[in-house]
């Protein structure tokens, strides 16, 4: 075991290999607040990569319903339970003290999947994990919201089947491989068949070396390495690497990187994918004009999923505003409160950058904002239900590609107000 630094935990941790950072890192931000589970991302991935024999139950991208759904079923609860069993009552965060760029959420004092492993002697797996059953892989996102009632004509409302159901709140969680900085799948592979590409940090399985031992399936805490029975190998999300390399002559004749298929097809405009520049020591190079860097490291409104697992995942989420904090804190760590506070009433810079979601298929490496006059004040609902006034400015945000060319431009305009009879005089 080596000691590596995990900035999401604010401390060093055990890992099987030395840190070997990539030049760039594939990363993404998902805004959970806007997802309506249309599954366009899921189908885009399926029709691109996993449409063959042996891949029927394989969904590299999936959207599941929380708090009760999951693919495979209960994947997160099971891993959290294993960690709790390994370290009863000790899984927590020390949030006091100074918050720095390399320690933005405080310090995690519990055990990661690497810390908690290896208690079974020399033959023990280097990662704490479990193997999902076949049933748990079947039927992703089927009947997770409720049992379906009869389909009704458009505009007609009615009840669904009468089964016990949770009526308080729920939200959709969009998931794919996090292309972790310290991948559990890579650490667990007895064949060294899994590697992290030095150019963009995408984690791939060498199909020649893989013998289908499924240690990666067992180890990945997010359960995003999957087994294909007819080839007897493991497969996983490849980050649409040909698109990251800009190898689509139709869409990118300049060879600028393009976002992955699941990102590019998001009709809800919840997804933004990018490439993050890393320094030699593995830390993120400061880039305040990179939209992902701004959302993740500067403003910290996009948070890692289950950072306590310890793999330093590179998928980040803007948490849903309506979900009780305790649930969100377990899922996204201690940064939730500050993230929601900022997101609910975004200032002009944040509002401008949020407009860049899904305006282009090309990866945005840099943005600039041209400031305009103030055009409105609107009342917004804060996470605790209180109201706050948000100022709207006629700003224009421009996105630039890797080669520095302008690729998209969005201007925020004066909002329009619709008032019914009851609210005609409510200005």
């Amino acid at each position, binding site marked *: 075991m080596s000691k590596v630094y995990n900035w999401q935990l604010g401390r060093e941790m055990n890992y099987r290999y030395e840190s070997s950072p990539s030049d760039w890192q594939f990363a993404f931000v998902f805004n959970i607040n806007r997802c309506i589970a249309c599954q366009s991302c899921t189908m885009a991935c399926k029709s691109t990569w996993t449409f063959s024999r042996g891949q029927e139950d394989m969904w590299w991208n999936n959207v599941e319903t929380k708090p009760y759904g999951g693919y495979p079923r209960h994947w997160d609860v099971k891993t959290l339970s294993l960690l709790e069993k390994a370290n009863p009552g000790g899984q927590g965060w020390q949030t006091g003290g100074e918050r720095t760029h390399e320690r933005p959420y405080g310090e995690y004092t519990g055990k990661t999947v690497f810390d908690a492993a290896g208690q079974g002697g020399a033959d023990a797996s280097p990662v704490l994990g479990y193997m999902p059953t076949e049933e748990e892989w079947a039927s992703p996102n089927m009947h997770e919201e409720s049992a379906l009632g009869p389909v009704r004509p458009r*505009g007609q409302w009615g009840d669904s089947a009468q089964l016990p159901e949770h009526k308080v709140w729920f939200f959709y969680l969009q998931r794919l491989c996090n292309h972790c900085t310290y991948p559990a799948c890579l650490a667990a592979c007895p064949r060294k068949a899994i590697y992290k590409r030095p150019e963009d940090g995408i984690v791939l399985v060498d199909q020649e070396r893989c013998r289908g031992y499924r240690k990666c399936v067992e180890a990945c805490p997010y359960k995003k390495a999957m087994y294909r029975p007819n080839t007897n190998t493991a497969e996983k999300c490849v980050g649409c690497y040909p698109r990251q390399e800009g190898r689509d002559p139709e869409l990118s004749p300049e060879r600028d990187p393009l976002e992955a298929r699941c990102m590019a097809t998001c009709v809800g405009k919840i997804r933004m994918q990018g490439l993050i520049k890393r320094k030699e020591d593995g830390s993120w190079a400061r880039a305040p004009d990179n939209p992902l860097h701004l959302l993740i490291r500067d403003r910290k409104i996009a948070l890692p999923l289950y950072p306590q697992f310890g793999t330093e995942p590179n998928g980040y989420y803007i948490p849903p505003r*309506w979900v009780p904090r305790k649930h969100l804190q377990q899922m996204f760590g201690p940064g939730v409160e500050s993230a929601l506070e900022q997101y609910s009433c975004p200032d002009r810079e944040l509002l401008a950058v949020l407009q860049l979601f899904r305006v282009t298929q090309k990866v945005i490496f840099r943005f600039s904002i041209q400031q305009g006059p103030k055009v409105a004040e609107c009342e917004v609902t804060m996470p605790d*239900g209180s109201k706050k006034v948000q100022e709207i400015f006629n700003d224009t945000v421009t996105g630039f590609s890797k080669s520095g060319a302008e690729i998209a431009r969005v201007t925020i305009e004066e909002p329009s107000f619709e008032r019914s009879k009851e609210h005609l005089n409510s200005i």
Partner: protein
Amino acid sequence: MTQRKPAQADDPFEMHAQVLDGDPFLMVEHIIEEFAQMGWNAQQLARLFQDPFYQATYRIGVSLGVDAVLSRIDSVLCRRGVIRVSTSERKANE
């Protein structure tokens, strides 16, 4: 179909549940605000809560009732407005 018997506390196979806090009206309000921020108007928002294809919002509509949801849409758009943006994307051959 098998008749389900009443739950008994000493049955080890009985389903366990955990009570979760939360306010469904807060969820509705936030969702309406999110989509208003993306430029959706009252008609589009109402459809979001009526189309069974969108299970999340459809279920909210069914649970809370059509009048309650439409009234929320109305009040949110009245104070929040619909954010408008103009977007231009530079195509590969431009």
